[in-house]
């Protein structure tokens, strides 16, 4: 027969001390969130999206590896559990679409999913066929967002995507670029087409979009999805060489990933950032940037100055 647990005076004092420390550190620890999840409305519809989504480039391209597929499904489980909504993929990303579909099936198609995919094929006539194949891989009735990947044949794809939107076969339409490419063309399309979203690269070291693209997105009421928030991991490896500054606590950041993401999503034109990861602890860290205080303009300048010196 087991003995009932007893609590010594020393253990009791240690527990009280630990509980006190936990309450002080609460905003900074993972697993506890300071307040409700922060969302931002999609300018064209008003639908609210959490500030952090989930990318799938490289990380979800695991082929037929059953262990890795289950691992990706766990990342998705943690993502939805912590309030995430937008998952982004592309036909270009190898098996990522199938792996997302696998995860969605395993999780019973969480209703909060905001599905974002792309059309990526030179022949415009084959765009609808590719979209249908992508939809089948995800296993969903329709996409919430379809984007023209890297502006490939956008003149042919966009009219078809707008027609699909008018027919209720997709909810919103956008275009994408990465690594600062073809910004002048992106601007022209933003001015001439009724886009719901534009997807661009933006991070602490690549801030070119602040000059024209982001102000234009606000002016034209176009949502902004940010890719490469960690510069493919290079940025996070760089900053993690040094200790997290004390001021990170002022914006409820427990780690560098949250500092980098909060810098991005605190820009008023940004709808959400889509870091990709294959690890549950990282998706939780990333989603932590959707909670708590966001940096104001002075803090944004401070973050830039600090990171540029590292």
């Amino acid at each position, binding site marked *: 027969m087991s003995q009932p647990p007893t609590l010594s005076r020393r253990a009791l004092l240690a527990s009280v001390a630990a509980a006190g420390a936990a309450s002080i550190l609460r905003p900074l620890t993972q697993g506890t969130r300071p307040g409700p999840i922060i969302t931002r409305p999609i300018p064209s519809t008003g639908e609210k999206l959490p500030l952090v989504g989930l990318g799938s480039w*490289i990380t979800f391209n695991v082929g037929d590896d059953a262990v890795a597929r289950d691992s990706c499904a766990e990342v998705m489980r943690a993502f939805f559990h912590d309030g995430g909504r937008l998952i982004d993929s592309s036909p270009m990303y190898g098996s990522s679409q199938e792996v997302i579909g696998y995860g969605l099936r395993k999780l019973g198609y969480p209703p909060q999913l905001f599905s974002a995919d792309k059309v990526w094929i030179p022949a415009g006539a084959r765009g609808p066929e590719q979209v249908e194949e992508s939809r089948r891989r995800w296993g969903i009735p329709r996409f919430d967002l379809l984007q023209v990947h890297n502006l490939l044949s956008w003149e042919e794809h966009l009219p078809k995507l707008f027609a699909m939107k008018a027919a209720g076969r997709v909810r919103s339409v956008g275009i994408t670029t990465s690594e600062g490419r073809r910004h002048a063309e992106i601007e022209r399309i933003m001015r001439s087409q009724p886009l719901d979203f534009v997807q661009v690269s933006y991070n602490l070291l690549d801030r070119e979009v602040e000059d024209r693209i982001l102000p234009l997105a606000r002016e034209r009421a176009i949502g902004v999805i940010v890719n490469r928030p960690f510069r493919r991991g290079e940025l996070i490896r760089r900053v993690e060489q040094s200790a997290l500054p004390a001021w990170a606590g002022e914006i409820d950041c427990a780690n560098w990933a949250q500092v980098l993401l909060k810098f991005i999503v605190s820009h008023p034109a940004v709808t959400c950032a889509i870091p990709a990861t294959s690890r549950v602890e990282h998706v939780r860290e990333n989603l932590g940037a959707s909670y708590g205080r966001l940096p104001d303009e002075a803090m944004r300048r401070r973050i830039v100055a600090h990171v540029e010196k590292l």
Partner: protein
Amino acid sequence: MSEWWTYTLSDFLLFSPRTYYRLFELYNAAIWPAQVAAVGLGLAIPALLSRAAAVRGRLIAAILAACWLWVAIAFHANRYATINWAAVYFAWGFGFEAALLIWTGIVRGGFVFERPIDRTSRAGLWIFLFALALAPFVGPLLGRGWRQVEIFSVAPDPTAVATLGILLLARGRGRWALFVVPAVWCAISGATLLAMKAPDAWIPPVAAALVVSLAVRQTLARQRIEKRV
């Protein structure tokens, strides 16, 4: 592709190193014990080199064609294509090399191995033996698991390097056409490994460059001798 100069190798990398090497691990597990037969085929090639000239060219071409066809289907089309959409084209490339080996080496009998072999041909033999016997140890020596080992006639890199070594040993019509696919593959594989920051990324392209330069030198030397005669 506009603004092509802004693209780097990593822009074309679709998977992580972990996923890439896991691919070999799962592939090796799925085809076991085919690797034993693969090593047997590899060992048969130097054994055949000592046999009668009439049959060895055709037999070696048949073995190499079988290896290229296997890698095309079992590796590129069935495995690699799950993480790299370009692998479908690689499968066609490997299939084309197999067809070329059949046409050149078996149908036309244009795969000739003469004795005694010159110094350059001897280098070809060493390159073949490296791909067959030493290349599989490179991954494990760099810390990758034994289950991820890449073996001649099963994995594309050792198959391509070994074939280049054999081509250096061979003479005959149409030999140069057979260099193209393995050399291009070595460049593609080297670029992929370089994008993954693999320390052994240099092996396939350096092996290909060495073989092609030796083959050019060998051909020029043979032409000089023929002119004198």
